[in-house]
Every structure is written in structure tokens, then in C-alpha cells.
């Protein structure tokens, strides 16, 4: 079973994305983190197959988490889908420079999310 870490500070979005992921044909194990620091703490304890990461969050934002992921040998190769309301070109470029694998902007269709997931799950 593939494991996914879902990081978003909004509980409603975590719940809905979790429900969407649980409807994925292959069974997925979804773990939630409530902000960037919680995500880093969780990844220090556990390994994952995919990271779905929001940007605007308290304590540590998505860019800081992404930098940590790429600089850490255990997570350096982890696929990261940025799931965020930032859609300025500069934000996408910044995400790509820091090593984001894919980028889905809010609001999105579930089909867009599934399309992004396809390559990694």
C-alpha cells in the first residue's frame, strides 16, 4: 500500500483531499500534517511515497518544507505535489527551483488532482 503525507493548515481541505484520495482505485494510506513544522516532524518519524504540500501555512511554509525535503538524504527523491492557492508565475517558478515535482492550483477539479497523482502512484 502506498503512503501519502498530506500537508495543509485548513482542516476542511485536508478532509476533502483525504476523502478524494480514499476514492483512488488503489488503496492509499493517508497521513495528515497540520502545518509545515508538523510535516517535518512527521517525516522525521516515518517515510512516505508522496508528499502533497500547501504553501501558505503557519510555523513553516511549504517552500521551507520543500527545501528541507530536498536537503535531507532520506527524502531528497520524494515526489512533491504543491497544492496551493498561489498561482503567480513567480510562485510556480520558485516551487520548481526548489524541486517541486508537480503543481496544482486551488480551486481545482478532482480530475486535475488525480492526473497529477497518476505519475507517482
Amino acid at each position, binding site marked *: 500500500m502506498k503512503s501519502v503525507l498530506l500537508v495543509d493548515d485548513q482542516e476542511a*481541505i485536508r478532509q*476533502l483531499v483525504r476523502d478524494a484520495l480514499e476514492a483512488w482505485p488503489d488503496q492509499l494510506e493517508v497521513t495528515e500534517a497540520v502545518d509545515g513544522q508538523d510535516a517535518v516532524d512527521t517525516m522525521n518519524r516515518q517515510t512516505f511515497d508522496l508528499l502533497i504540500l500547501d504553501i*501558505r501555512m503557519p510555523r513553516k*511554509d511549504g517552500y521551507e518544507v520543500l527545501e528541507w525535503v530536498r536537503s535531507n538524504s532520506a527524502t531528497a527523491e520524494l515526489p512533491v505535489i504543491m497544492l496551493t*492557492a498561489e498561482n*503567480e508565475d513567480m510562485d510556480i517558478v520558485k516551487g520548481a527551483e526548489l524541486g517541486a515535482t508537480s503543481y496544482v492550483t*486551488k480551486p481545482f477539479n478532482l480530475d486535475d488532482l488525480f492526473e497529477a497523482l497518476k505519475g507517482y502512484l
Partner: protein
Amino acid sequence: MGGPDLLDRLHRLLDPLAEPPALTAGDLEQAAGFDAVVLAGERVPPTGVPDGGPPCLVLGEGGIPLGELTGPWLMRALAWEAERAELQGRLRNSNRRAEEMLATVSHELRSPMTVISMAVQLAQNPATPPEKRERHLKLLGESVQALHTLLNDILDYSKLDSGRLELSEVDFGLRALLENVAQGYGLVCERKGLDFDFKVPPDVPDALRGDPGRLRQVLVNLLGNACKFTDKGSVSLAASPLARDGDTVELQFTVRDSGIGIAPAAQARIFDAYVQADKDISRKFGGTGLGLAITRRLVELMGGRIWVESRLGGGSAFHFTCRLARQPAALAREDLAPVSLSGLRALVADRNRASSEELLAILADLGLQPEAVSTASQAAKLASPDFGVAFLDLDLGRASGFDLLDQFHTKGLLEHMPVLVTTSAGQRGDAARCVELGASAYLTRPLAPGDVRTALEAVLADHRAGRKRLVTRHTLREELAATR
């Protein structure tokens, strides 16, 4: 070209919205032929061009040559150019802020839109179990509410900005409003593991007239921020009366938290529209940056002001004042109601031990809780709004007695603690000085228990009703005669 023709041309050029073209080599060559050059409102070399003096070439911002001028024409052109440059700077700042606001608002719209969009898609999926569908609809409802709040903020700001927002005038109970708001934020704090403190002293009037909805909006904005930016410690809400003036009352509210605090440089800007304390705050906590701008404008509409005391990492205290009308029926009720002396703390400042003890005994018999001091410095140290009344004897030394009264007056203590000045040796001019320094009564000794009681009741009734006058033996005799 010179004189009025050139001024006319300058006038047309001084359009604050016009972007000046870049300086060309030809412009520089032209500038080199003149004795003085003015660039963007600044003369080089320094000012002092006499009438009929050498002509100067005026260059606008970015080096645009505005023309050749001398003496007074030059001075007028300089003033226009400086004004234009300042106006253009302000417009640019305003445009930049509006662009930032649009970007932030667009981001803030995306979050609830995402929830709505996903909830609808999941709820429409026939494979979604009914219990999940119910949860999705609940999330959808909450997001619609969040969008509603956001749009209201934008509309409110737009109305406030163009002066189209008017406050309502209805009777309301302040305590019920505050208790209701405090109850909601008490729960929010409890969920976050924060302590919540709520203090409204008994001298805060309850029956008021104004716009309770907008007062609530101000409190909710400030308490919402306090909870949002505080992870541990406490949040508190307090209210106190500042001044009563006939049928209106000025109140002060304070929302305090032990949260992340605000840097000194940001404190001056946070009440401007579209501004958050810094970019990091916006990134980490969200929000449009309109909340405090709306709050400030609403407070100003209510005849008050708002300010912040804060230290980075050391929490914040937002204070605001507002003027509200008191309900006529309540004023009439208060005027008729007897004044209660029971349990009232009284400060007695008197150097003479015998007269001090005599007054303490009278006050204790009347049910007050008197505390005595024998010097002006002790009195200054002990005085606080917790005292309901003070007796100040000029035997402390006439100069130091009035100095002490002046200190109470300056610190605003008299709004909470009316002062009765006593003396065993009245002098010409004492009463006028008492009025000037805000004393409530001026009484010559000896003081019989009946005199003290009557004077206290008159002073406290005046204080409660916001009446300003000096109670003396003479006014008390007149009132007594009138009631017979």
C-alpha cells in the same frame, strides 16, 4: 518661451498621472547651457534666484525639461513640481497597495472556493457514502459563510472609504453584547488551550444607544486577531468608562494578548488598508489586511480612536475609545435611584491624625471602606481607579494638596475617583482652584456625619450622571431648602 505661456505649458505637463519620458542626450545638452538646473523640484545650485536673474532650466522627475524660467516664475514652477512629485508618489503607493490587496483577496477567495468546488464534486459522486456526503455539505456551508464574510469586509471597506457607511442608532445593552462576544471567544481560547479573561467594572453604563452591530464587529476583529496570533498564554477583553458628559459616555476597550507581537516599524502601518504587519504574516496566517483598516474607520465613525502597544514576541494590547449616547430613560432612572455607599473604597489623605481618625470613623459608619495616608506622596502612590472616592485635606500643605489634586486630574483618576477637598482654614480662591483642578466638592471643617453623608451622596450622584459642578456647604444648604 517664458512667463505665462511657459506656466500654461507647465500646468499641462504637471499631470500627476503622467509618466515622464526618460532623459535624452539632447535634454542634457540643453541643460548644460544654463546657469542653474532644477531637477524634480530640487534646484542645483541652491535657491536664491533674484527677479531678473539668470534663467534656469527646470527639469521634472526623470529629467523631463519643463522649460526656462526666472525669478518668481521659477519659484511657482518649483512649488508645482514638488507638489506633482509628491502626489505622484502617493498615487504610486496607493496603486501598489491596491494591487497587493487584489492579489491577497484573490488568494483568500481561492481557499473557500476550493472547499466548495471539491465538496460539490465529492457529494455528486454516487460512490460517496451518505455520512461523508453530509460532512461535505457541512464544509460547503462553512465555506459559503467564509466567502460571505470576506465579501462583506470588501464591501464595508469600500463604503467606509467613500464615506457611504452610516451607523445605526438603536438602544442596546452593552453588558449583554460584551458577554455574548466574550462567551464566543472564551470557547475559541479554550479550544486553543489559552486563558481568557473578561473584565467589565460596575461603573461601565449598560443602557446605551448606538450601533451595536458595528461595535461588535470592532471587538470581533480585534479578538479574532488576538486569538489568531496567540499560541500560548492568554487573551483578554476589558472595558472602562473614560468620561461622562451629560447624556453621552466615552468608553475605552482593551483587547490584550500574549501572542507574537508587532515590530515597532509595522505598528504605524497596520491600520492602513491592504497592510499586514509583514509578508511573512500574510503567508503564514492569511487574511486580507482589511480587518484593522475597517476597524479603525469604524472606531473613528463612533467618535473614538484606536492605538496599539506591542513588543515583538511580547504580545499586543489594542485599545480603542468610542462615544455612545446613554438612553434617556436610564439617565432618569439613575438620577432618581439612591446612591449606594456600602463597600465603597475611600482614600483619606490628611496629615492631622485627630481629624483623619474622625473622618475614618464617620466613613466606616456609613459602610465605606476607608484607607488613610498622611502625606501627599503616600496618597499619590496609593491612589488608583479602584477607589470609588477620595478625601483630600489641604492641611497636607496647601501647595502639595493642590499639586496632588492636579496629579490626579492629569492622570485621569478623577474620572473614576471623585475627590472631596476638605480644609479647616478656607482661603479666598480655594473654591475656584478646586473647580479648575476638577475636584467634586470643597468642604470646610468641622464635618458632622450628616454633612459627610449628604456631600458624598451629592458627589457620587453627580459623578454617575456625568454632571460637573463643585459641591460646597452652600450648594448643599440650597438643595436642602429646595426639598423642604
